[in-house]
C-alpha cells in the first residue's frame, strides 16, 4: 500500500461514503489489521460511528474481519483492502459494459448491486423493475420475469456471484459483527474464504417472483409510502433470504482484457484477424482460468466451425490468417501443435506484456518527444547499451542523445548499470550501461497514474468548493423552475425566474461545468491505463 494508493483510496472513500468512513478507511489501510477499540481510540471517533463505517466497508467488500492474531479468544480484527477501494474508480466502465452486453436491464442490475455492495436477488429484481417502470411511458410497467431472466444471464456468464459464506466466529461475546449474514458454516480457516471457494457460487436460488414494477407517483408520496411501509415491515420473504450477490470484478477484467487484445489486433492487422482472435477467446472463455498464461489449444477446424456466420471466409484463407497472426512480432497467437489442422493458442501473458510495453512507449513519446521514444524503444529491445552505442543505433547526434538520456534518467525511466573492470570501482575503468526494465518501470508508471487521478479528484473538489455559492444558487433556481413547471405556471414567470441568474454568472457556470466534465472524463481515461498496467503487473506476479 503505497502512499499514493492510500491517498487515492481516501479521496474515493470520501466522495462515496463521507468523511467518517474516509477517516476509518485510511486508518485501516495505513495500519493493517486492527480491532475495534484501537480504531476508535486512534481516530478519536465515537464507537457507534466506527461501527457504522465498518459496516459500510464490509458491505462493500472493502474490509474483512477475522479472528485476532492472538488466538481465538482475542477481539475481532478488521483489515481493509486497497485494491477493492480502487475498483470504485472503474464503476462506470463496469456498468457500461453490462449495458453493451445485456441492455438496459443488465445495466441497472449491475448498477444496483455495485451501489449497494451486495443484495439479494429479489430485492434487486424489485428495485430494477421499479426503476425501469419509472422511465417507461404511462400505463406500461416492467415484468419481474424479464428482470429475472437478465439476472440469470448475468449469473450464468459469471458476471455476478454469490457472496462467500462468513466463517463462524469463535465466541459471540464481542458483538461487533456487522450486519452481514452469519451462516453457521465452515470451520474456522486462517484465510478468509473467497467467493470462488463456494461450490454454489453461481447457482440461482429457487425463487418465484411474480409481479410488475410499481410506478411511484410523486404526488401522493407520504400516504402511500407509510401504508406501504407497514406491509413491508411484516417482512415479505421471497425465499432467498441470506443469499447475497455481488459483482464479480475478475470476470469483468477478463472481458476488458479480451477487448484490449482484440482492438490491438484490429488496429495492427485488420478486422478479419480480430474476428478470428475474438472467436478464439470466446471459445476459451470457460476453459481458461483467470491466471492462465495462455488459453487452451484450439484446432483450426474448431475455429473454422465457430466463426460467426457473417464472416464467411474459406478454409485456406483462415489458415493464412492464422499463420500471419503467429508470425506477427506481437506474438498474440502462438502455434502449439500440428494436429487437427494446427493447434493455436492465444498468449495472454505475452499479450498483456506487449500492451503494457506499448503504453510505456507511448507515454515516453508524448512526454519527451519521438526521438526520446526511439531511444527508449531501442533500450527495451537491446537491453543494455553504452552511451556510444545508443548514439550509433538511434542515429541521433551525441550531444542531443546525451541530453535525452539524462532527462530520461532523471525521470527514472531509464536505469544505469555499472560494470566495474577493476576491484576498485574507479569511474574511468567502469562500464556504464543504460537499461530499461519493463516491470519496475510499469510499476512506476502505475504509481504516477494513481497520483494523477488523486490530483484530478482534488482539483475537481477545489473547483466545486470555489464556486459553491454559484452552484447552490443554480440548483435552487432549477428546483424552483421545476416546481413551477409542474404546477403549470405561465412562461413569463419562468423567464423571470431564469433571469435571476445573470449572464456572467451563467458563463461562469458553463465554464465550471466544462472543467468538471473534463476532469471527470480524464479520470475515466487514466483508469483505462491503470487497468492495463495493473493486469500486466498481476500477471507477472502469479508464477
Amino acid at each position, binding site marked *: 500500500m503505497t502512499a499514493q494508493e492510500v491517498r487515492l483510496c481516501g479521496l474515493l472513500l470520501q466522495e462515496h461514503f463521507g468523511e467518517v468512513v474516509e477517516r476509518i478507511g485510511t486508518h485501516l489501510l495505513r495500519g493493517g489489521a486492527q480491532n475495534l477499540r484501537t480504531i476508535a481510540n486512534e481516530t478519536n471517533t465515537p464507537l457507534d460511528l466506527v461501527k457504522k463505517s465498518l459496516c459500510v466497508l464490509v458491505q462493500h467488500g472493502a474490509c474483512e474481519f477475522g479472528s485476532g492474531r492472538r488466538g481465538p479468544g482475542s477481539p475481532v480484527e478488521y483489515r481493509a483492502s486497497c485494491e477493492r477501494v480502487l475498483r470504485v474508480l472503474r464503476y*462506470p466502465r463496469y456498468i457500461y459494459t453490462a449495458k453493451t452486453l445485456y441492455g438496459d436491464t443488465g445495466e441497472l442490475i449491475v448498477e444496483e448491486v455495485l451501489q449497494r455492495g451486495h443484495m439479494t436477488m429479489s430485492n434487486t429484481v424489485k428495485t430494477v423493475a421499479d*426503476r425501469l417502470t*419509472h422511465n417507461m411511458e404511462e400505463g406500461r410497467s416492467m415484468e419481474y420475469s424479464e428482470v429475472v431472466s437478465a439476472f440469470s444471464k448475468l449469473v450464468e456468464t459469471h458476471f455476478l456471484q454469490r457472496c462467500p459464506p462468513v466463517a463462524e466466529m469463535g465466541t459471540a461475546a464481542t458483538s461487533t459483527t456487522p450486519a452481514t449474514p452469519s451462516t453457521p458454516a465452515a470451520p474456522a480457516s486462517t484465510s478468509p474464504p473467497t467467493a470462488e471457494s463456494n461450490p454454489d457460487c453461481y447457482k440461482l436460488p429457487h425463487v418465484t417472483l411474480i409481479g410488475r414494477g410499481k410506478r411511484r407517483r410523486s404526488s401522493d408520496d407520504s400516504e402511500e*409510502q407509510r401504508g406501504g411501509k407497514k406491509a413491508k415491515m411484516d417482512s415479505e420473504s421471497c425465499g432467498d433470504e441470506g443469499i447475497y450477490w455481488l459483482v464479480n470484478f475478475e470476470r469483468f477484467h477478463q472481458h476488458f482484457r479480451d477487448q484490449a487484445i482484440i482492438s490491438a489486433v484490429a488496429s495492427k492487422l485488420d478486422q478479419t484477424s480480430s474476428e478470428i482472435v475474438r472467436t478464439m477467446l470466446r471459445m476459451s472463455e470457460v476453459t481458461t482460468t483467470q491466471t492462465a498464461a495462455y488459453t487452451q489449444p484450439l484446432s483450426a477446424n474448431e475455429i473454422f466451425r465457430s466463426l460467426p456466420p457473417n464472416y464467411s471466409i474459406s478454409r485456406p484463407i483462415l489458415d493464412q490468417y492464422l499463420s500471419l497472426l503467429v508470425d506477427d512480432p506481437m506474438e498474440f497467437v502462438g502455434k502449439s501443435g500440428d494436429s487437427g489442422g494446427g493447434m493455436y493458442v492465444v498468449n495472454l501473458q505475452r499479450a498483456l506484456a506487449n500492451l503494457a510495453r506499448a503504453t510505456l512507449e507511448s507515454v515516453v513519446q508524448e512526454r519527451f*518527444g519521438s526521438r526520446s521514444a526511439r531511444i527508449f524503444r531501442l533500450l527495451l529491445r537491446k537491453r543494455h547499451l553504452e552511451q556510444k552505442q545508443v548514439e550509433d543505433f538511434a542515429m541521433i547526434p551525441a550531444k542531443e542523445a546525451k541530453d535525452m538520456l539524462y532527462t530520461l534518467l532523471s525521470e527514472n525511466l531509464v536505469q544505469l548499470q555499472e560494470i566495474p573492470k577493476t576491484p576498485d570501482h574507479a569511474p574511468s575503468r567502469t562500464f556504464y550501461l543504460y537499461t530499461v526494465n519493463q516491470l519496475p518501470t510499469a510499476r512506476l508508471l502505475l504509481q504516477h497514474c494513481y497520483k494523477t487521478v488523486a490530483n484530478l479528484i482534488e482539483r475537481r473538489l477545489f473547483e466545486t468548493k470555489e464556486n459553491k455559492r454559484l452552484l447552490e444558487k443554480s440548483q435552487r433556481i*432549477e*428546483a424552483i423552475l421545476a*416546481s413551477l413547471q409542474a404546477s403549470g405556471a405561465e412562461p413569463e414567470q419562468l423567464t423571470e425566474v431564469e433571469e435571476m441568474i445573470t449572464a456572467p454568472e451563467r458563463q461562469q457556470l458553463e465554464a465550471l461545468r466544462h472543467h468538471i466534465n473534463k476532469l*471527470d472524463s480524464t479520470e475515466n481515461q487514466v483508469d483505462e491505463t491503470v487497468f492495463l498496467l495493473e493486469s500486466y503487473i498481476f500477471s507477472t506476479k502469479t508464477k
Partner: protein
Amino acid sequence: MAGRGRGRGRGQMTFNLEDLGIGRGDSLPPTTFKPSPLFPPMPVQPVPLQTGEEVEYMLALKQELRAANKTLPFYIRRAAPKRDVDRYSDKYQSGEPKDSAIEWSPGHPPQVKQPKKPPVGKEEILTKLETLEKNEETVNSEEEEDGEKKKANEEEEQPEEEDYEEDFEEDTDYIMSYFDNGEEFGGDSDDNMDEATY
C-alpha cells in the same frame, strides 16, 4: 581576514569542483532568484481527451453515481455541531441528523438473531418507518435531478413533521381557538361598574 579571497575569482571550497563535473571555463546554469514557478510552462502539450458517445455516457454515469451516493444510507455524516443554545425551532427542524446514533438500517433486514430483543416502542416504529421511507425514496428517485432531490427531501421532511404535529395536537374536532378557558374572565376594565349586575 576571512573575506580576503573574495574579490579575486571564485571562492575556495573544501572539495574539488572538477570532480563534480563543472570544469574550468564551463558556464554554470543561471542563478535562481525565486522558487520555481507553480505551473511551469509545459514543453509538450498533452494529447486531447477521447470523445465519443461511449465516453460521454460513462461521464454521465460517473456523475450520476456520485450524486446518488449522497442519498444512500451508506453515506455517513457527522452529527451536526451543537449550537450554543437549544432553540425552540430545533424541535420542528430535523432536516439534518441531530445525532449520529439514529436508527440506521443499510437496506436489508438484519439476519443475526439478537439474544435480547429491545422493547419495540411507538417512537422506534416511527423512526424506522422514516428511515425505510428514505431508503425507498432514495432508490426510486435516483433518476431525478440533484436540486430537485435535495429540495424534495427537505420538503418531504417538513410536511411529515407537520403531519405528526397535527396528529398530536388535534385530537378533537373542535377548533382550538374556539375554546375559552375563562382566564380572561374578570380581567375586563372596571369602567363599566355603573351597569347593574343581575
